[in-house]
């Protein structure tokens, strides 16, 4: 019972932690961004799981269905996905510029090059 | 009577499609070099998807879903051979020989970032264009 009731949330927690681990532990900037993506997507999965109603169909009103999933989390996550891709695009642009001016996208290199001058 | 025959046909197509999908995936994992893996990949792309979409079309019945599935089929009919072509082409351009060895490139991860940057980025640039 507990397993089927909370399995989703536990996987979401594990996914979040995998993403967060990548952001903290990896020195490569691109990998950090991928980590951020995984982290954010896992939050999306959490919200959508909250919105699920057993037996409910997609929240498009029709004669065939009486039970629908909760539409509000869907709306929120649509916005959050857009925010996520906006952040990713900006971060990647920053990485390209960093690569141009530092010659590397590894955190260690950047830190040593900054302390040299 | 006809209905049950249709659903049996649909089930067979779906089952066969899934079989091709799985064997294609296994092929990508197990085959030794790029070109034979490509063969496995195009197997899933063509036979697998066509069979599955075909099976779904039989279960869909007359209506909008059937039309949409037809459109998807047509779309895949155009894109997947083209994708395969582009993949082979870029492999050829980056001088990937049969046997899986890439000419003149260092193994990724070995050595500094700089030393293996150029060949890799060139390949990627091409892969990206596909």
């Amino acid at each position, binding site marked *: 019972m507990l397993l089927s009731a909370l399995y989703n949330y536990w996987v979401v927690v594990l996914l979040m932690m995998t993403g*967060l681990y990548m952001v903290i532990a990896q020195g490569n900037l691109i990998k950090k961004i991928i980590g951020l993506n995984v982290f954010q997507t896992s939050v*999306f999965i959490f919200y959508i799981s*909250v919105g699920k109603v057993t037996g409910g169909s997609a929240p498009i009103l029709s004669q065939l269905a009486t039970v629908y999933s909760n539409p509000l989390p869907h*709306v929120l996550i649509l916005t959050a996905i857009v925010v996520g891709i906006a952040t990713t695009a900006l971060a990647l642009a920053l990485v390209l510029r960093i690569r141009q001016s530092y010659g590397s996208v590894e955190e260690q290199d950047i830190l040593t090059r900054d302390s040299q001058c | 009577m006809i209905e049950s025959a249709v659903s049996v046909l649909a089930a067979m197509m779906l089952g066969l499609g899934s079989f091709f999908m799985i064997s294609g995936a296994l092929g990508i994992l197990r085959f030794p070099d790029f070109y034979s893996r490509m063969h496995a990949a195009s197997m899933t792309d063509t036979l697998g998807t066509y069979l599955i979409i075909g099976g779904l079309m039989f279960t869909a019945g007359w209506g909008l879903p059937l039309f949409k599935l037809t459109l998807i089929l047509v779309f895949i009919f155009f894109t997947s051979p083209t994708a395969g072509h582009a993949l082979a082409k870029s492999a050829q351009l980056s001088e990937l020989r049969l046997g899986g060895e890439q000419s003149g490139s260092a193994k990724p991860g070995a050595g500094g970032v700089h030393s293996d940057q150029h060949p890799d*980025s060139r390949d*990627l640039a091409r892969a990206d264009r596909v």
Partner: protein
Amino acid sequence: MELILDITLLSLLLVTAVYIAWTRDLFAAVMLAGIYGLLSASFFMSMGAVDVAFTEAAVGAGISPLLMLSTLAICGRAQRANPQRAILALISVTVVGLLLISATLEMPAFGSPDAPAHLHVAPRYLTDSMREIGIPNVVTSVLASYRAFDTLGEVVVIFTAGLGVLSLLGLQGETLPRQVQSPMAEPSHLVLRVVGKVLVPPIMLFALYVQFHGEYGPGGGFQAGVIFAVGFILYSLVFGLDAVERIVNRSLVQALAALGVLVYGTVGVLGIVSGRNYLDYSGLAGDSVTGQHLGIIAIELGVGITVAAVMMLVFFVFSAQLVRGRVVQHAS
């Protein structure tokens, strides 16, 4: 059956995420991130969140890997290991994880219809939106009317990101020689050129369908904008950046990005002009349901224009960097 699907998809997601963290080949990581996006889109689909699934498929498996690949093409695919930080990261991640797990224990069970989230605000959307707004897709009603201000914010976020990318990368490519051809422009790529040409119009048509069908089925301005941009991106991949910029030059795209936000903002102001609150569309036409309908179409158009323009802008700027990198490489 639903449960098995759910558990399978989530387990696949977990495996993918762990492999992304483990691998040191960035190219593999990006490809897996695309798969991760596609898997989560399938998961959203199985949860009945069709609009979200559509968007996630376009973003997580489409635009985001595309941008990452362009970045990789310049920055290289190898990555160094960083063992010192791993233990610290593991510890902090474990602490946060345990806190979260303990929080889940008192959560309402997954899928339970009498969880507080399904009892308070949401029922009104499901029962009254047909009467108040008159369109079947409840997600669109909430997105474009009940919580339209969030969506305005979302459009502004996209606009901000586009401008940010432009300010970082956009203004340096101008002085470089522009006659560098895309490798695909050679005659040997006949197949690609023909198929590319054939595919662009249906893609545009599909974008328009998604744009204007969003009230009845999954879709809407954002998804349509992305698809529309993909049409142009495909064209530029096959025929080169210059070919696209002959049709839509960059200042036009930039102006369109701003225009979409302005359309949205102005529709909101029309609400004030008609004597109601900001973003209240009821006064736009004789009866309030028609007014709502009109308003939703107008703002979805604004969303579509901005999203398409920004996606194109970002892609153009990124691939101009790629061309620039190649020129520099040839020169050295």
